[in-house]
């Protein structure tokens, strides 16, 4: 009963904002704030509701395989909590940040459409519906990247739109291949029919899906759009894009399609390992050489998504637990880092690390939370980054892939180097900072403090009692592979 409300609430908020918004953004802020708060409350209630089996909601009263069903299993509920939490903090941050640019109602409508699209991708169990919701979220993302109106933002948005449309065509081609082989669009029917068909079908479909979703997730050969798009977007949108969009549309869709539908053929798991390792190394190495704060964060995102992909490619339960945990952690600390860059840009007017100074007296909240986030992403205990990277490295060694564990460790060293550079040059250097150009409002500070607290709190998820309640059901869903649909639909 409550499954479609995750999609209806943000969509209704977007439509109402367009209908009643007008020029001022106060009504838009109220509507979208109410929507985000109710989404977060619902997601948390569903997550802690204690059900480890799945819920099914048939849209339009048509049963599977004739109709589209929304499925809520533990992996989906984890992702829903992640998305709605980052949305709430992004809204808190945007109120002051966008007023500094030009607060209009369209920004909030686009943000709500983005959230509706992502929630739809998480909840659906039909491949074409996944494509449609993915396109909805991508439209909003393209428009939001170009929102500021400067020349670089249009260039970045055009690059993002061109690469996004190539990847969407590849995914559509893959759906056509799958449909021609199995004549079913629902994930359960495809998973049931695919083992009896020719292996070439799985190979073709998997290759096209890997190219399409890999482009969305910015794995290594297809990463070229990400540094421009994430560094040109406004800071709260960069947080949403880098924190949840590339993980929902890219990594979650990859895991769902490759594990639960295609049944995790070993060839593609090997591809995950290789691409993940390459992403880790190249992303983090390129991050060290950047002087623009947001571009450094964008390259670091490529590296961290490589970690998630490497862990997913291992195929063991421990690896998958590391992947899911790292997804959650990266959403939290990367969003926090983007909020820091937004606060610094508002206060000092620059994004270049060489021009920043020592801000620990002027902007105490920003300086402290950026230290927390840098320690978390570098993998220093007791923050959450340490535990998720440790899980991934141990899982790689246990699965008999020591070379990839070594790649993960080397990448982690480069991450430490990049963020030590950020702290040394950007926030704690010897030069005193320039004059403050604008104040950092309470909304921005609140969003940053909330995420910094979460950095420490989520490291509790590794504790064995809590891990059984939160992470392990999600891992079990993925490990069941194609058998998941038997337990969900009971056929």
């Amino acid at each position, binding site marked *: 009963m409550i499954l479609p409300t995750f999609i*209806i609430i943000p969509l209704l908020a977007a439509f109402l904002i367009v209908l009643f918004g007008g020029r001022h953004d106060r009504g838009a802020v109220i509507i979208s704030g109410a929507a985000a708060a109710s989404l977060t409350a619902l997601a948390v209630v569903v997550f802690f509701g204690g059900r480890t089996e799945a819920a099914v*909601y048939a849209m339009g*009263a048509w049963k599977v395989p004739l109709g589209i069903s929304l499925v809520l299993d533990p992996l989906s509920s984890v992702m829903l909590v992640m998305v709605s939490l980052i949305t709430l903090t992004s809204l808190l941050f945007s109120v002051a940040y966008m007023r500094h640019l030009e607060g209009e109602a369209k920004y909030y409508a686009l943000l709500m459409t983005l959230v509706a699209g992502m929630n739809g991708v998480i909840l659906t169990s039909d491949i074409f519906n996944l494509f449609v919701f993915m396109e909805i979220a991508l439209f909003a993302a393209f428009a939001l990247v170009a929102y500021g109106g*400067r020349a670089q933002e249009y260039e970045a948005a055009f690059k993002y739109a061109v690469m996004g449309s190539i990847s969407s065509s590849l995914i559509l081609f893959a759906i056509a291949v799958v449909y021609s082989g199995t004549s079913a669009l629902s994930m359960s029917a495809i998973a049931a029919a695919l083992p009896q068909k020719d292996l070439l079908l799985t190979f073709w479909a998997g290759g096209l899906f890997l190219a399409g979703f890999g482009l969305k997730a910015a794995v290594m050969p297809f990463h070229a759009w990400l540094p421009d798009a994430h560094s040109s977007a406004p800071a709260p949108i960069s947080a949403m894009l880098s924190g949840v969009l590339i993980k929902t549309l890219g990594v979650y869709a990859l895991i769902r399609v490759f594990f639960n539908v295609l049944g995790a053929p070993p060839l593609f798991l090997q591809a995950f390992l290789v691409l993940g390792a390459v992403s880790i190394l190249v992303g983090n190495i390129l991050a060290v050489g950047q002087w623009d704060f947001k571009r450094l964060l964008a390259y670091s995102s490529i590296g961290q998504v490589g970690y998630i992909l490497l862990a997913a490619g291992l195929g063991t339960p421990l690896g998958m637990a590391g992947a899911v945990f790292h997804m959650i952690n990266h959403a939290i600390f990367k969003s926090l880092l983007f909020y820091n860059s937004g606060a610094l840009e508002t206060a000092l007017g620059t994004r270049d690390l060489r021009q920043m100074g020592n801000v620990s007296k002027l902007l105490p909240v920003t300086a402290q939370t950026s230290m927390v986030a840098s320690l978390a992403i570098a993998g220093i205990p007791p923050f959450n980054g340490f535990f998720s990277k440790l899980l991934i490295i141990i899982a790689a060694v246990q699965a008999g892939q020591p070379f990839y564990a070594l790649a993960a460790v080397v990448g982690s060293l480069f991450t430490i180097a990049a963020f030590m550079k950020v702290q040394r040059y950007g926030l704690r250097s010897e030069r005193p900072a320039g004059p403050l150009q604008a104040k950092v409002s309470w909304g921005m500070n609140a969003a940053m403090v909330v995420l910094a607290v979460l950095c420490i709190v989520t490291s509790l998820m590794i504790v064995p009692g809590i891990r059984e309640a939160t992470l392990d059901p999600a891992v079990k869903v993925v490990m069941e592979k194609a058998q998941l649909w038997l337990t969900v639909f009971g056929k």
Partner: protein
Amino acid sequence: MDKQPGLTIIVKTVTRLIIWMIFLYGAYIIFHGHLSPGGGFGGGVILALGLLSVLLAYGRDFTLRWLNLKFLKSLEASSITLFLAAGLMGMVLGEVFLSNFLAKGTLFSLWSSGFLPILNIFIGVKVGMSLFLVVLALAEFDVEKGAEE
């Protein structure tokens, strides 16, 4: 030769005569969406093309004076909200979201198959208005203004 906006007088006269037939044809495609190919999206595109032919034949300023843009924008926003409301009515009256809660009627008649004609109308209006407003926004764009960084 012509400093007048828009195209020649022949095009303007023909457009003035046939756009009402274009609107009628678009409405026909929308209303018969459950019986013949087309439906909401195809009919909506035809409606938009009717308005666009006015834009092309008469120029931008005349079109902006002839149409009430605020009305079109509110029509677009409200029709999509009404679509969502129809889905929610399905949730309240029927079992699930977007379930068909009106009577199904007899086969092949115009008022059959539940609420499909109503949804077709909402979608047709929405698509027509949004397609026209997008092209109008692109046409209203002035290249010289705002060319600084």
